[in-house]
């Protein structure tokens, strides 16, 4: 059809007889029409139109949030909601947002990852909702996990954080943490011990993990013991678990070169290089896992809706404990923030709140996408009702206080995106065997420390 059409238009333009000349000119007129259609779509006059966006990682999540949007549209008076899925992780979600803010076409309320809050806040792209929050009696900073709220109430001018810092950059959408998604078919076939039982007995350590990975890897050249994506989350875990980390305690300098960090990195390197149990670093392991070829797949709660479509027996288990005695897990979070240029800040704030009520979070949790960001037993209970996976507790163990998770966070004293751009490629060099851990250790902080404002 299209081809015929295009040939016709070629012809229209090309033959140029008087008869066809008119159609050539005509498209100018045809451009007008459907504006009309756009107008009829516009909301009724009394309603304020609010657009909002979160980053979905798969179609299942899009469905969850579309449902939420429809529900809230009915509940909130005077507001008409439009949910836009936005790009996925691979499609530069944050960068697109910035381009749209610059162009004035960004949504009123949008979700950004915790790491980017400082960048957006210091550029003046998101609204400081402190006044709106102060006027809202229902809102309390203490209702949410402290890790995210520290950064969301951080005032870069005073350096203060907390309820009275004079800054509220947003409300956390949810929290998440890593677990290992298990392909029990492979683990059983390899005769490897059940990681869930090991975890229950407190024997789930790096050695036990390596044992399971090696046993499953031995099943065949296309079967892998372990798989993780190539971004800061997965590799950061190994650094944390051996007592290291990306930054110093006050997040003002690079700590990638401490002996603990390097030891963690070296163990992860050995998974790729020495023991060869992992899917190639840099290639997405999720399709491979879903195809039934990876025994242990490290990912966050957000992967659950997608994994539920697989046709093998699966479950989750918490990350293995490292030398530091903890699994070094992250407390991932992202927040709904308000566009600094929104025309309706009050309504936007109302929406941000509505999106994070215990009720909404319960709904999202029940749909399986993520863990509520409110610290409440009720929310956690509704999270636990969603199975499979049977072992939902693995996620809660990851964020439990005694697991001491490291909260994801932006760099107020520097630029997280730039830090990431220095760190990511360098670590990739180590994990793919191009550079040694020693060489990495001697040079990395020289480069990475430049992103901190002195």
């Amino acid at each position: 059809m299209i081809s015929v059409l295009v040939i016709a238009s070629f012809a229209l333009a090309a033959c140029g007889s008087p008869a066809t000349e008119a159609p050539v000119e005509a498209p100018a007129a045809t451009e007008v029409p459907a504006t009309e259609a756009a107008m009829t779509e516009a909301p009724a006059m009394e309603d304020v139109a609010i657009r909002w966006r979160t980053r979905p990682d798969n179609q299942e999540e899009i469905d969850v949030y579309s449902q939420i949007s429809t529900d809230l549209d009915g509940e909130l008076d005077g507001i008409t909601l439009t949910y836009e899925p936005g790009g996925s992780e691979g499609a530069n979600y944050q960068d697109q947002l910035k381009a749209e803010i610059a162009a004035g076409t960004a949504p009123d309320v949008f979700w950004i990852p915790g790491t980017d809050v400082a960048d957006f806040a210091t550029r003046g792209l998101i609204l400081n909702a402190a006044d709106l929050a102060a006027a809202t009696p229902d809102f309390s900073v203490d209702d949410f996990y402290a890790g995210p709220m520290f950064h969301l109430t951080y005032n870069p001018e005073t350096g203060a954080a907390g309820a009275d810092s004079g800054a509220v950059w947003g409300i956390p959408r949810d929290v998440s943490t890593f677990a290992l998604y298990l392909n029990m078919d492979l683990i059983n076939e390899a005769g490897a011990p059940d990681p869930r039982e090991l975890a229950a007995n407190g024997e789930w350590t790096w050695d036990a993990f390596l044992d399971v990975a090696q046993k499953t890897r031995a099943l065949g050249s296309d079967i892998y013991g372990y798989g993780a994506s190539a971004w800061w989350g997965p590799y950061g875990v190994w650094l944390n678990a051996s007592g290291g980390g990306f930054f110093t305690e006050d997040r003002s300098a690079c700590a990638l070169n401490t002996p603990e960090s390097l030891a963690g990195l070296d163990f992860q390197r050995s998974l790729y290089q020495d023991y060869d149990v992992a899917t190639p670093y840099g290639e997405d392991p999720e399709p491979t896992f879903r195809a039934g070829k990876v025994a242990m797949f490290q990912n966050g709660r957000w992967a659950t809706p997608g994994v539920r479509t697989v046709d093998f027996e699966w479950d989750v288990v918490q990350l293995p404990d490292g030398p530091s005695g903890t699994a070094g897990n992250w407390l991932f979070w992202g927040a709904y923030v308000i566009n600094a240029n929104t025309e309706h800040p009050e309504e936007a704030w109302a929406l941000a709140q509505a999106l994070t009520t215990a009720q909404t979070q319960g709904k999202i949790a029940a749909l399986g996408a993520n863990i509520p960001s409110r610290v409440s037993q009720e929310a956690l209970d509704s999270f636990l009702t969603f199975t499979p996976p049977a072992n939902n507790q693995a996620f809660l163990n990851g964020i439990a206080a005694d697991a001491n998770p490291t909260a994801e966070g932006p760099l107020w004293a520097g630029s997280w995106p730039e830090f990431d751009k220095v760190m990511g490629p360098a670590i990739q060099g180590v994990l793919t065997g191009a550079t040694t851990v020693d060489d990495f250790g001697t040079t990395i902080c020289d480069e990475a420390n430049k992103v901190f404002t002195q």
Partner: protein
Amino acid sequence: MKIQSYRFLQFLNKFITYFVLTFFALVMIFPFAYMLTTSFKIPADTFRYPPRMLPRNPETVVVDGYDEPLPLYFVDVDGTQKEYALAKSNIKVGTYAPADNLTATVERYLTEVKPTGGATNQQKVTVNGEEVKLFDVEVDGQVIPMILVSQTTVGEFIDPKNPENKIFQNVRLSTPVETLGGHPENYVEVIELNNMARALTNTALVTILVVLGQLVTSVVGGYAFARLKFPGRDTVFVFYLGTIMIPFVMLIVPLYQLMVLIGWTDRLAALIIPWIFTAYGTFLMRQHFITFPKEIEEAALLDGASRLQILTQILIPASVPALATQATFTFLYAWNSFIWPLVIINVGNEKNHVLTLALNVLRGRASDTPNLILAGAAIAIIPPLIVFILGQRFFVESVASSGVKG
């Protein structure tokens, strides 16, 4: 003798020629073929190793006593291959051996074996300095304490006609029974879920308007450069020529800000209007018109025809190949452009996505279903291919002519 060897050489020459040509043709075709066949597969089939070209469907069978249809596999029964249904998987099997003779192994289901001395007080034995648990294994009616050497899982395969006939073997390494067959519904899914239909018509609309607009402006501009003498013409022409080499990415930042200024971000207009004025197209048209004999035009002028009449009634009908050249290039450029839509069109506004953008979104959302991604790619790639096959002569020859002239 000599003639024979000459003939042989000629034959060899031809053979090598066709061999080389066919080899390269296969290299060129292969990715397209892969794209098409994969787009009809089911996800599991795309992750198979070794890879297979044609899409297949796993066969199932309905067996009495089971609610769901069971997948069929090939199994080896007494030396003959038979099609059995997989009734149950993940059955744990252990390999047991006496602690003093580890080579005398027997295989038992884990459920059939009890811990020696009971679950609460299981007996242990030391093997190679390590304590190992003992199990009571029955061999030929005799209970022998053995240790678990290794364990694995098997599936229970049953004869669909006679469910009593059972075979146990590894499921993962068994060959499923499959039939050739595609899944055109992949295309339906991509189009419905990922907005490909809208992206397709948007791309068509944008491309048509850009091609038409660009033809109009470059024809009249090229005519002015080629045929009309006016002061400043040559200066402007040199200026045009000088900008042909400037790559588009030079403009991406200022053009973005210009679009912000006039409010065209996130609008299809931004994909159309700036692209209908090009120096290159005008240059091509000018090169073409300049070869046209002047006499005809002068005669028409004497007859009182206006310049516009000359252009539309004499020059344009005689320039179909040149216009087709220009239209070809513009069409491909407009259809395939990516970086500008990426910058200017809002990722959340799927109504205004063009195919390349939709593909970029799709690759993130459907990263675990290559069949869907490649179905999307096929939707983007096939329309230009159809146009190409229909107008093959135009395409190839217009490219050739552009090289000769350039």
